């Protein structure tokens, strides 16, 4: 469930998109707020469909939301 190599910009993107709350993002992508919290803090690596949904919610490509850190592997 952990995501040691996966980083994301969800928090920053939320604030850039009109101070979007975690609940609003959760409602947009169809998950619970707890899942957004866990994803945002890097404790949960979302599935590919959910990652795409999050990127679509911000209207940007997935690679601008999630980054895989190859160096630490």
């Amino acid at each position, binding site marked *: *469930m952990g995501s040691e190599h996966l980083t994301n910009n969800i928090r920053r993107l939320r604030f850039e998109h009109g101070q979007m709350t975690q609940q609003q993002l959760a409602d947009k992508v*169809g*998950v*619970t707020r*707890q*899942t957004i*919290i*866990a994803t945002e*803090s890097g*404790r*949960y690596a*979302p*599935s590919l469909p*959910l990652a795409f949904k999050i990127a679509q919610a911000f209207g940007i490509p997935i690679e601008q939301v999630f980054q895989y850190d190859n160096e630490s592997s």
Partner: protein
Amino acid sequence: MSKLQKSAWVNLGIMTILTVFCMLCFVFMAKNNAKGIDYIIICFIVGCVSAPLIYVYLKKRGIERNFDEREQLIYKRSFAISAVAMMAFLFALCTIPFFVVGGANVVKVLYLPLIFYSALFAAQFIHSMAIIIQCAMEEENG
């Protein structure tokens, strides 16, 4: 409290009531050496107790279908933990008397349904507790 935690608490409540009730029924039947009419009365009482619990259980199943992927993962992991725990519990329950009482002795038939229901309860209890603990740990971590 998330839907997953609520579902776990409901499950814990339903299973506790049903298990205790079923065990009491078997103990009652064994004590009274039940025959004929006793079974009809017990079936009626079981129906009266089970119907509302089954209704709550079915409503809970509807909630479970709406779990998101992270909750499904917690649910599945808890299920795996409970399956292993149930096997360990069942093993202990069936083998400890063998070593304590001895292989040549006998046990009452009454213990068989009690072992079944206690194993079922143990599995459900551990499943629910595993969900509640995992959710609590996640909340604690922020």
